[in-house]
């Protein structure tokens, strides 16, 4: 039994190399980010107080912000809500024929993944998820090879906003300005692997073992529903896409009363299955226990966020405006020139 020591191809992906965590390390990282973010917010508010003419309101402002700081959990919930809206936007862009049908799934999944990766290194105090989500979506259309022009990209948003508020709020710059920030936070690693392809592969492979073809097809279509659910969870940081796909397949099979265990036992060695089953259990539980954040809850968190945003990064704050003005006055120095 000669064992070769070559790496597998999937182990060479940046997703495998840099974006795998344990659920504990995820929680730790989020808590640490949150703590640092809060410090930055308070620091920014103090700086802004100096910029202000000191009319006495700044003390109350800081006190109000400290009362409304978000916990790491609230951050995740807020992000989760905006991830749900990605699904709506995908539908809108599909209707406008800006996205092709076979690309829509990947664009959506990549966008969701970018947002999740972005907030592993950033906090909502600095960058509110509403615009980050749009930037990630815009970036995902490029990454998944179905580029939408920025004017086309903005148009459905603007029409929706005009309908609701009477005027368009989102401008081209809002999205484009953040694009580099996002790519930087993604560590310039833009290739994401989703469970869609493995699920398709399983569907083809199972055809040899499961006789009821129409039912299998129904199960496969149902699998997409569960894969969509899995995108919102942290599973992508914990398990391989093929494992998530199989977990979703098992859930779908349970819905449709199809037993796919014969396929698994026939295809794979039993002792390998032993480890796989515990993984699949985890995945199935994570998918079925995920509850989307309700709009009311999101609104409540959003209202708190308005009060505790970091003024240093908020284009509407006085501090930001002053800094921007200072920067314009300063002569431009290229990085390569300064020695």
């Amino acid at each position, binding site marked *: 039994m*000669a064992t*070769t020591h070559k790496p*597998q191809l999937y182990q060479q992906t940046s997703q*495998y190399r840099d974006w795998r965590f344990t659920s504990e390390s995820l929680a730790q990282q989020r808590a640490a980010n949150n703590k640092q973010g809060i410090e930055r917010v308070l620091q920014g508010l103090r700086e802004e107080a100096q910029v202000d003419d000191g009319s006495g309101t700044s003390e109350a402002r800081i006190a109000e912000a400290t009362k409304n700081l978000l916990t790491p959990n609230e951050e995740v919930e807020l992000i989760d809500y905006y991830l749900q809206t990605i699904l709506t936007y995908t539908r809108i862009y599909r209707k406008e024929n800006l996205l092709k049908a076979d690309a829509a799934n990947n664009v959506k999944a990549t966008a969701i993944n970018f947002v999740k990766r972005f907030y592993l290194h950033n906090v909502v105090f600095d960058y509110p998820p509403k615009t980050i989500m749009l930037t990630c979506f815009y970036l995902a259309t490029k990454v998944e090879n179905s580029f939408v022009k920025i004017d086309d990209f903005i148009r459905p948003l603007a029409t929706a906003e005009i309908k609701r508020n009477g005027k368009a709020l989102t401008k081209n710059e809002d999205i484009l300005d953040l694009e580099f920030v996002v790519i930087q936070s993604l560590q310039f690693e833009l290739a994401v692997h989703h469970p869609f392809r493995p699920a398709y592969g399983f569907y083809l492979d199972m055809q040899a073992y499961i006789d009821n073809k129409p039912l299998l097809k129904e199960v496969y279509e149902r699998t997409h529903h569960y894969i969509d659910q899995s995108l919102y969870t942290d599973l992508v940081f914990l398990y391989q896409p093929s494992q998530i796909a*199989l977990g979703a397949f098992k859930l779908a099979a349970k819905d449709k009363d199809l037993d796919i265990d014969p396929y698994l036992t026939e295809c794979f060695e039993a002792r390998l299955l032993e480890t796989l089953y515990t993984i699949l259990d985890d995945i199935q539980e994570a998918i079925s226990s995920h509850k989307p954040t309700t709009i009311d809850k999101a609104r409540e968190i959003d209202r708190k966020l308005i009060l505790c945003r970091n003024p240093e990064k908020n284009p509407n704050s006085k501090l930001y405006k002053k800094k921007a003005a200072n920067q314009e006055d300063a002569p431009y120095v290229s990085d390569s020139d300064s020695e």
Partner: protein
Amino acid sequence: MSILASAKKQDISAYTTKEDSCPQCQRMRYFNERMMLLVGPCYHRMCELCLDNTFSAGPAPCPECQRILRKNEFYQPIFEDLTVEREVRVRARMAAAYNKRQEDFKSLKDYNDYLEMVEDLTMKLLYEEDIDQTDSIIEKYKRENNAQIERNMSKRQREEKIQRMVLDQEKNKKQQLREEYLRQLEDEKREKVEAKNNIINALATSDKSAKEILKARAVQLKKSSLSNRNAGRKAQLELEALLKSATEGFYDDDDDIDIEEIDDGPFDPAESPYEPVVVKLREKYDDPTPAFRQGNLAAAGVTREMHQRYLIEGAMAGLFEPPFSDSAKSPSNMDTSAS
């Protein structure tokens, strides 16, 4: 599984001796070969006839301890000593309720404390101290941890199923190898007989000299028996290796094989640097992608087979990858003893 499960499946027969007698009616096995001695929840013996007599009109007190019993609570004991019988049953009952595993606990100490607590309760039941109180504790625990108990139980059942499958697979493999070996032996024997007959025929019919014919045949015979013997030898070796691995247990680690000893064959400069994903493709799939349904090309140089191989390889890639753990990242094989 346990003794009780085997007894239920009648793999283990009830304990009987020639000298058995019913403590109620004093009937002896000497007179009735098929007499059944049964035991109730109070661990007092009774023969089948007494049982029918005592409980013919519903629940009745046990003749020895006056506890109210029912007929369907009686069963055939497996052990000679009824205290052993009782302990086995009490422990089975406890194990069904207290089935937490080590991975359910944060630390080893918690797990050990839990085990000690369970053992204390078991002992109380066995020595009949505070039975009512202990029972109520157990019932309460069962109610509170219902979900987890069920989950662990199904986990356990599946593990047992997989263990059985591993054994079955190994047994089948062994059987196949054995059949192969026997077939080869038979083939060799038949060939020898055939060769002998051929020589006699050739000597009888051809007009070459006898010496020439014998020489040609001898060379041929030597060749064929040599190749056969090699094949037989190989099968024998495989059989031995399999037997060895089976006796070594399920998890034989080949890690301590010296890497240099493995012969990877001749050097191939065009070899893929990655481990290939082994997939078996079928002739035809029901492929939902319309572009590949007719077997024409969807893009330059991409055939349907390539597309399907790509999908199925995607499904198999990393399927058995264990979840990421922090310890896997840190170098575990650092040689500290060398310093």
